[in-house]
C-alpha cells in the first residue's frame, strides 16, 4: 500500500498512558512500548497514583530509547514523527507535542499531529486479518462510546455516540457500587461470567437504555442508578451481587450489539471493527460474533494491546498520513494541541 519505505515514530500521551512505537511502511510495526502501572510500581516502588502516572515527561524519553534499541534503528533513521494532538488532557498532550516538535526540529523531519480517535479507528488495520475500507467501527472504552463509518483515511462519519457516560466508565462505576473497587470493569465481567456458570437461581432485569431511540446514540448513566436501586431493594449476598453484575453486563452488551448491527444495516456495510478496551469483554465478543454471523457480517477485534491507548496506532496513522500529504505540506514546525477536538472537526470527514 506504500510506495516509499518510511519509518515513523508515534507518540501517544493523551491521558494516563505513555505509548510509543516505530512503524515502517514496508516492514510493519517494528517495536512499541507502553508505560503501564505495573511497570511503574517495579521501577519506583510502592503505589503510584493513577493520575500522577500522567507524568509523561519522565517516561517518554526512556521509552523512545527502548524502542529504538529494540528495533535496531537510530533517531537519524526516522522519516517522520507522529504525536497525539488531541483530544485529551492539555498538560499530557503538551508533553507529546513538545517532544515531537523538538525532535522534528533537531532531525529536520516532518511532524504530524494525529487525532486520538483516528488512531483508534485505524488500529484494526495493524492486525491480521485486517479489514479493508469501508467498515463500521464501534469504539468503546472508558472515555468513548461511538459508532463510526470509516470509508478511508480521513473519511469518517459519526453515526452515534453516548450522550452521557462511556460504556467502560459505566462498567467501572457499577463495579465500584458493587464493591469491586475502581476501576473494576474487568472484575465485574469476571463476576458476571462466573455467575452464569454457577447454576444461579437469581435473576434481575435492568433496562436497555435508548435501545428503541431510533438513532445510534447510547446512554449508560441511568444503568448505574438502576443498579443502585436494585441494591437498596435486595440483601447483598454473593449470589445477588453476581446476578446484578450479570444483569448489568447483559444490558450494556445488548445495547452495544443491537446498535452496532443497526449501524451495519443503516450503512449497508458488512464489516464491523471493535476498538477500545471494552472490546476485550468476552460477552460482548460472543454476542457480536453470533449476531453478525446471522446477517452475514464479519467482526474484527484488534489484539488487546492495540485496543487500549497505544503508540502503535499513532505511528501507523502518521505513516498513512505521510503517504497522503504533499511534500510542501510536510512541516517541521508543528506544535499544536487540541484538548477538545471532535473528529469531524478535522474538516476531512464526509
Amino acid at each position, binding site marked *: 500500500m506504500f510506495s516509499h519505505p518510511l519509518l515513523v515514530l508515534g507518540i501517544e500521551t493523551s491521558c494516563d498512558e505513555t505509548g510509543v512505537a516505530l512503524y515502517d511502511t514496508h516492514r510493519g510495526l517494528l517495536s512499541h512500548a507502553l508505560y503501564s502501572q505495573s511497570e511503574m510500581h517495579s521501577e519506583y516502588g510502592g503505589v503510584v497514583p493513577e*493520575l500522577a502516572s500522567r507524568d509523561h515527561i519522565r517516561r517518554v524519553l526512556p521509552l523512545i530509547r527502548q524502542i529504538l534499541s529494540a528495533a535496531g534503528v537510530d533517531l537519524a533513521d526516522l522519516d517522520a514523527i507522529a504525536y497525539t494532538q488531541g483530544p485529551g*488532557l492539555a498538560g499530557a498532550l503538551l508533553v507529546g507535542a513538545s517532544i515531537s516538535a523538538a525532535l522534528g526540529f533537531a532531525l529536520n523531519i516532518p511532524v504530524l499531529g494525529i487525532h486520538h480517535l483516528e488512531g483508534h479507528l485505524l488500529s484494526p488495520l495493524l492486525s491480521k486479518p485486517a479489514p479493508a475500507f469501508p467498515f463500521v467501527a464501534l469504539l468503546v472504552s472508558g472515555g468513548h462510546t461511538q459508532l463510526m463509518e470509516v470509508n478511508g483515511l480521513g473519511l469518517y462519519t459519526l453515526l452515534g455516540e453516548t*450522550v*452521557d*457516560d*462511556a460504556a467502560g*466508565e459505566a462498567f467501572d*462505576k457499577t463495579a465500584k457500587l458493587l464493591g469491586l473497587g475502581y476501576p473494576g470493569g474487568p472484575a465485574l465481567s469476571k463476576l458476571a461470567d462466573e455467575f452464569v456458570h454457577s447454576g444461579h437461581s437469581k435473576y434481575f432485569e435492568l433496562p436497555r437504555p435508548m435501545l428503541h431511540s431510533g438513532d445510534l446514540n447510547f446512554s449508560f448513566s*441511568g444503568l*448505574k442508578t438502576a443498579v443502585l436501586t436494585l441494591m437498596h431493594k435486595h440483601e447483598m449476598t454473593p449470589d445477588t451481587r453476581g446476578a446484578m453484575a450479570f444483569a448489568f453486563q447483559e444490558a450494556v452488551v445488548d445495547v452495544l450489539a443491537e446498535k452496532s448491527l443497526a449501524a451495519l444495516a443503516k450503512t449497508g456495510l458488512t464489516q464491523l471493527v471493535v476498538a477500545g478496551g471494552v472490546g476485550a469483554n468476552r460477552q460482548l465478543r460472543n454476542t457480536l460474533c453470533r449476531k453478525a454471523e446471522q446477517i452475514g457480517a464479519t467482526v474484527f477485534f484488534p489484539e488487546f494491546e492495540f485496543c487500549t491507548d497505544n503508540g502503535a496506532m499513532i505511528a501507523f496513522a502518521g505513516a498513512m498520513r505521510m503517504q497522503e500529504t504533499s511534500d510542501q505540506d510536510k512541516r517541521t514546525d508543528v506544535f499544536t494541541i487540541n484538548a477538545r477536538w471532535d473528529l469531524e472537526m478535522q474538516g476531512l470527514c464526509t
Partner: protein
Amino acid sequence: MHHSDHVHFTHHLSGEAATLALGAEIATGLHPGLIIFLSGNLGAGKTTLVRGILRGLGYKEKVKSPTYNLIEVYKISKLYLYHFDFYRFENPHEWEEAGFREYFNTDSICVVEWAEKVGGLLPTADLRFFIHIAEAGRDVEIHADTEAGRLCLKRWQAALKGSDFLNP
C-alpha cells in the same frame, strides 16, 4: 468559610425530571466567578443536575460525564462553565499537577464533582450541593458559604418556595 453567613436549605426531588428542573432554576441565578461543589454517591445524579443547569443556560448539546477527561468545557455565548470531576484522583496533589487552578477565575463558573478528593487545596466554594438518595427520589441540600452564594441561595429559595413544579 464564615459560619455566621452560612445558610442552607433542603429540597426534595422525585426523579430525574425534577433534578433537571432544579438545575434549570439554579441556572437563572448563576454568574461568572461562582464556584460550586457537588457531593453525592455514584448514581445520585450529580451530572444530571449539571445537565439541568446547562440546559437552563441554553446549552442544547450533549452533556457527557467528565470522569474520564477530568474536565468538560462549555461555552455559552460569552460564558465559560467548567464541569470538573475529580473522582479518579487518589491524591490531592494530583490537582496541582493537573494544572486546573487557572480555571478558577472571575470570568467563569466552576462546577466540581468529587471536590472532597482534592481536600483543602481547592478554592472555597460559594455553594455546596449534597445529593442524598432518599426513599423515593433524592434530597438536595444546598449550602451557601459566601456572600455571593448566599444571594443565589435566597433567590432560589424564593423561587422554589411553595412551588411544586419541580415535583410534577
